[in-house]
Structures are given as C-alpha cells and as structure tokens.
C-alpha cells in the first residue's frame, strides 16, 4: 500500500498543474502594494512641468498609468480614462513607457489626453523600479505616497467600479 503513495502524490500534482496552466500567471499582485511608490525624477511632456517626482502629487489620491503609443491595450482603456478624467475629475498621471516623446505627443493629440501630467520614462527606468512588466498598468497611489492597488493590463469598467473607485472615494453619480 505504502508503495502507492508516490504515484498518488504525482497524480495530485499533475491535476494541480493542469489547472494552473489554465490560469494567467501574470495576474500576480504587485509586491509593491502597501509600500511607498518608488521615487523618480523625470522630465514632463508637452507643457507639464520640466521635472516631475511622485512628491508633486503628495496629499492626493491619484492613478499612475503606464502607457505607450506603441501599445494596443492602451488604446482599449483610453476611452475609459478620458471619461474618468474629464467627467469624474480623477487625477491621472501618465508615464510614457519606453516611448519617443514625439510619438507620445502625436498619440495624445490624436486620441485625446486624459492625463493631468505626462512624464517621459523613455528608458523605462521608473517602470523597472515600479515593477512594470508590460503596458498598460495602472497604480493607485494614496495621499501618503504608498501604492494602494495595481491593475495589470487595460483598466476595465468593473475594475474601476469594484477595486479603484472605493479607494479614490469618488461618489457614484446619481
């Protein structure tokens, strides 16, 4: 009987892996949640200040959205970001991740600009510190400068309603 134990353990593991393979491993919470947002000092873009650091929005709860003109998922979430920024007054900071300034500007001109300020992270160095592994990614940063939540992939209406809106304290309209 005891000689059957190893094969039983193996079968259990295989079942586990089979389920695991159907899951998306990228949906892992950021280890940064609950920690202070990593500092950076990067140039702003198109009229926004020349130097932006996370200290600039200390005291307010903001969304920090990593995006890029070359990114398809960013187009998907863009209308929602526009609506949040212009109709609900959410403060969104955009980090243009591994992008050329001219391309970012052209993209914003064409599709509209939902960002209070746009920061050029040309080399992706801030993204590296923030643990970004693909755009778009959106962080909720609290008034004390700590990261409250991280959305991997495009922002969706349900993520906004269930996860992010409660953190921002924006009241439901009507």
């Amino acid at each position, binding site marked *: 009987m005891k*000689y*059957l134990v*190893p*094969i039983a353990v*193996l*079968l259990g*593991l*295989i079942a*586990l*892996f*089979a*389920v*695991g*393979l159907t*899951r998306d*491993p*990228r*949906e*892992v*919470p950021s*280890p940064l949640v609950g920690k202070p947002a990593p500092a*950076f*000092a*990067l*140039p702003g873009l198109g009229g926004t200040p020349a*130097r932006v650091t996370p200290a600039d929005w200390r005291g307010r709860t903001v969304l920090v959205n990593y995006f890029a003109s070359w990114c398809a998922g960013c187009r998907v979430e863009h209308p929602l970001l526009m609506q949040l920024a212009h109709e609900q007054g959410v403060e969104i900071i955009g980090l243009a991740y*591994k992008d050329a300034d001219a391309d970012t500007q052209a993209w914003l001109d064409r599709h509209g600009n939902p960002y209070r300020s746009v920061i050029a992270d040309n*080399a*992706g*160095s801030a993204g*590296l510190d923030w643990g970004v592994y693909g755009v778009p990614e959106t962080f909720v940063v609290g008034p004390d400068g700590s990261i409250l939540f991280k959305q991997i992939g495009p922002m969706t209406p349900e993520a906004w309603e269930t996860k992010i809106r409660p953190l921002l304290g924006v009241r439901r309209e009507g």
Partner: protein
Amino acid sequence: MTPELGHFALILALIAALAQTLVPAWGLWKGNARAQAVASSAAQAQFLLMAVSFAALTWAFIQKDFSVAYVADNSHSKLPLVYRISAVWGAHEGSLLLWGLMLSGWTLAVSLFNRRLPAELSATALAVLGAVATGFLLFMLITSNPFARMYPVPLEGRDLNPLLQDPGLIIHPPMLYMGYVGFSVAFAYAIAALITGKLDAAWVRWTRPWTTAAWAFLTMGITLGSWWAYNELGWGGWWFWDPVENASFMPWLAGTALIHSLAVTEKRGLLKSWTVLLAILAFALSLLGTFLVRSGVLVSVHAFASDPARGVFILGFLAVVIGSALSLYAWRAPKLATDGELRLYSREGLLLLNNVFLVTACFGVLLGTLYPLVVDALALGKISVGPPYFNAIFFPLIAPLFVLVAVGAVTPWKKGEWRAALRRLRGPALLALAVALVLPGLALWLAPVSASFGSKLTVAVATWLALFTLGSAGLEVWQRLRSKRQHGVATAAALASVPAGAWGMTLSHLGLGLWMLGVAYVTGYGVERDVRLSPGASADLAGYEFAFEGVRESQGPNFTADTAHVQVTRAGRLVADLVPEKRFYPSQRSVMTESGVDARLHRDLYVALGEALDPQNPNGDWSLRLYYKPAIRLVWLGGVLMFFGGLIALSDRRYRLSARAAAPLPAATLAA
C-alpha cells in the same frame, strides 16, 4: 543551408533515440541479445547527431545569421563573440537543445562505460534514456524548433537579454543542465533495477559515481547561478528563493539524500526501495524544474519565455515519464524490500535521519514554490510566498544535518556506541564553542554594524554549528590514519590508503561548514544603506567610508554606460576603488546595473549605482546603494569545495577497479 542541416540532424537524432528505445525493448522481451546490443550504437549515433545539430546552431550565431528566428531574437551584430556563443542557450529553444545534447552526452558515456554490466541491465537503462530523449526531441521539434527561419530576414537582431550578458551566464546553464540531466542516469538505473528485479551491491557501485557526478555539476551550477545573481541583479543578494532557483535546489536536496542513501545500500544492503524512489524523485524534480521554468506556470525573474502549449507538452511528458516510473515502483518495489536490521544508533541509522531531514526540507521548498499555484488553482486569489517562509522552514530543518555530519563521522556501521562518540566529539565541540563565543564579537569589533540580540545569538549558534562541522568533518579520515599508524604503517602510505571516497566526503562536508559560516555572517551582520550623494561627498557603512567621485559616460560594444567611481577608505587608508555602472542597451531599450564589488575572503564591499536625481545634470546628486557583506565569499567557496569533493569521490578506485576487472577501459571519469 547549415540551419537546415541542424534541423535534419535533430530529426535523425529523434529516429536514433527511437531505435535506442524500441529495439532493445523488443530484444529484452524476446530475449534477443543482438537487438539489446543495438542500444549502445544507437546512443552513440544519437550523440553525434545532437552534436552536429548543436554545432549548426552555434555556427548560425557566430555567422550572425538573422534569417534564423531564434538567432534574430537573441543576438545582435554588435554582440561580442563570446556572448554570441553563449546566446545559443540564452533562451528557450537553445536551452532545450543544450538539454538534449547533455542528455545524449550522458547516454554516450553510459554506453561507453557499461561493458562490465550485465547486458540486460545496460540495455534496459539505455532504452530508458532513449525514451527520455525521444520525449525531449519531440518536444523540441513540435513546439520549439530552434532552426525555424524568418522571412523577411531582419537587418538587425533583437539582441541577447542584457541580464544574460555576463561571464557567469556563460557556464552557469551548462553546469546546471549537466546536473539536472545527469540524474537521468541514476533514474535509468533505478528503472532497470525495478524491471530486472536485480538490485545488488554491484548495481549500487555502478550507480554511485553517476549520481555523484550529476550532483557535483548541479552544485557548481547552483553556486554559479547564485554568484551571477549577486553580481548582475544589483540587489546584493545571493539567494532569492525564486521559483527557478527552487527548481534547481529541489533536485539538489533529493540528489544529496540519494548520495547518502546509496552509501547505506552499498554498505549494508538496506533501504533499497527508498534509494530507488529517491533516484526517481531526483530526476522527477529535475523535469519539474524544466516544467516550471519553461511553461510559465509560475512567474519569476528567470522565466524569459513562456508559452502554455509548451507547458501542456512538458506536463504530459512529466506525467508519462514519472507516472510510469512510479507505477512500476508501486508494482515492483515491494520485491526489493530487505529484512536486514537497521539500528537507529549506527551510521546507517544516522544516514536515514539525514535523509528524513533532507527530504522534508525538499518537500518544504516544494510546498512553498507550489503554494501560490495551489491557491490560484483553488480560486482563492493570488499570493506569493516569500523568503520569510522559506527561511523559517529551511534553516531549522537543515541545522540538525550539521550535527549529523559530526556524529556520523565518529559512528561506525551496524552498531554505534554513543559514549565513545561523545568522547571523541567533546574536543571539536568545545573548540567550536570557544571560537563561537569570540568570533561574532570580534567581527563586530572589526566592522561595527548594528545587529539585534536575536541576530547576534543566531550568528553565534550558526558559528558553532559551522565550526563543529568543520572540526569533525576530518575525523573519519583521521581515524583511518590513526589506526593505520598503530599498525605500523608509514604516514605517507597511510595517507595513500585513504580511499578517494573518504577524501571527497571530507572535502564536501568542509564545504558545507564553510557555507554555513558564510551564510551566518552575511545574513546576520550584512548591512546596506541607500544614500544620496553629490560628487565629492561620502557616506559611512560598517566602519568604511565610501567617497563618491562622480559619474562619467562611457561606451561599451553594444551599450552606453554611466560609470561611477567610489573610493572606499578605512581609517584614512584606501581600501578599494569601485566602479559601479548603469548600462543602457539601446537594442532592447533596457537598463542594467553592474555593481562595483571589492571582494575579500572575509568581506565584500558592494556598490550599486541608482538614478541621477537630476537627469539634466549628470554632475549632480546620484542615489547609490552601499552594501557591506561579511564572509559572503565563503558561501560560494563552500559550493566549490562540494563540487571538488564530488569529483574526488567519483574517482574512487573501487568504482574503477571493478570496471577494469571486466574490460580494459580508459580510467577517465566522464566523456561528456
């Protein structure tokens, strides 16, 4: 043309592997000796074809043949030659090809050295190795062909991941794979023993050197990986309990247990079915490691390429290979059971205890590695298990092993006498205690760092364990010498009479002790500090003064770099001149840190360059991270000693003598 040649050789290798499996299997079934003998020739043909295939891919990299998709993805016209060659195993497809080459190399070695074995056993083992190779070759040809062409041909490659452009990465993967794949030989012999029902002392003597060789390579591979992570990742750590690190560490733990249980089976004929199970387990964990790394089930810093289709294939492969091995085990292992008596207080009893701790530690690591997957599979959310869990599980489980090394060295086989053991260990134990009371304080006095009482106590206890191990590791050899001397043998002759196996064991155990010493000090007394410095300013750490001299831009072959100069002084005397860099690789738009390290046996000084806090002005303030890492070199030195211990042990005469008795063979260790 060359890539097609490589692809074709790979297909032929698959056919050879099939022949290596099926023909001898048929021969075993029908009792046809000539069909069984085909296994060796097929194995040799398979190795040649794999070598041709590997050479073809290497040639494509050397020639910068960007029409091959894999080359275009992992090379660049400005990539230096040495990295173009190591880029062959820099990503998924090439890693598998290297895996396959190693497997066929080990198989070749088996086919060359197997002449003294019973023909049936040898044919069975080669057939098992052929089956494993068949699976891997199918996997490569179906999901991961490294020779696939790309049209239109890109003008420029996308470059090798800059993380992998490091000397440590040139030999780390080959060493690691040598170890992983090497356990396939012990696995094949375990299966052969189950099938033929023969597991005697000759089988063990045959299996032991193969296991030790695989273990030694794995040890070296892990050590090199740790050294690479320390230098290249810029976090100053040497082990992160990352899923991929765990994937290499679990087979190591199982393999270590196997080496010790093989000793019991050889000397006493006990624990046979347990030894067979460990041999299966060590290889199963190697395959599991490949699955975890290559399927993307777990996220890690190492998982560069992941693809669910590949995951499904490897999972199926794992299920077939290990599933059939364990089914065979369930069916046949009861026949291997021995009714010899095992006393707890004897060397074999202590080795069994060693196995219990090692396997439990291995299971703990497995649990921590897979736990996020379990939680996810049960839809309980996403979690990650971090170093606190692993440290809490692992260290208490391995601490007893250090005492076991000492007690084992003075305990004879069959029946020990604990009073005698205690008497012999009193000296080393008290000596270790004396040093453990002084050394931690001395270290703090030489390099003042703030440490809590808890960590001071841990350092003292770990120092005692390490020194006790170091002091008693040599007792076995010393006893042998003393008893020879008492019988009037001259010292030189007595030294020569000590078998290589005993020297190898001693050296490996010394390595273990040094490793523990290093771990204790670097974990307990290592300090780090984040600082903001303007050129000319300096910061203190552990009694050293780090003066920041500023940053200059420099140009590498395929990157530009910000190179900083940091002068370290101690009491006004210059100790080291460190040059940490931040490299920007334009081909991948990525930034890498190259830390500046000054290494001494008793400490490392380590500086990682952070960001220019004012990017407009590179002569302004920079953020820097400073580390003081006491004794970290001992961590790797321990691994290196274990590696050499393994090599020495496998040169033991008793493995060679019995080989020579049957047929004149070159007394080399391994041809692979």
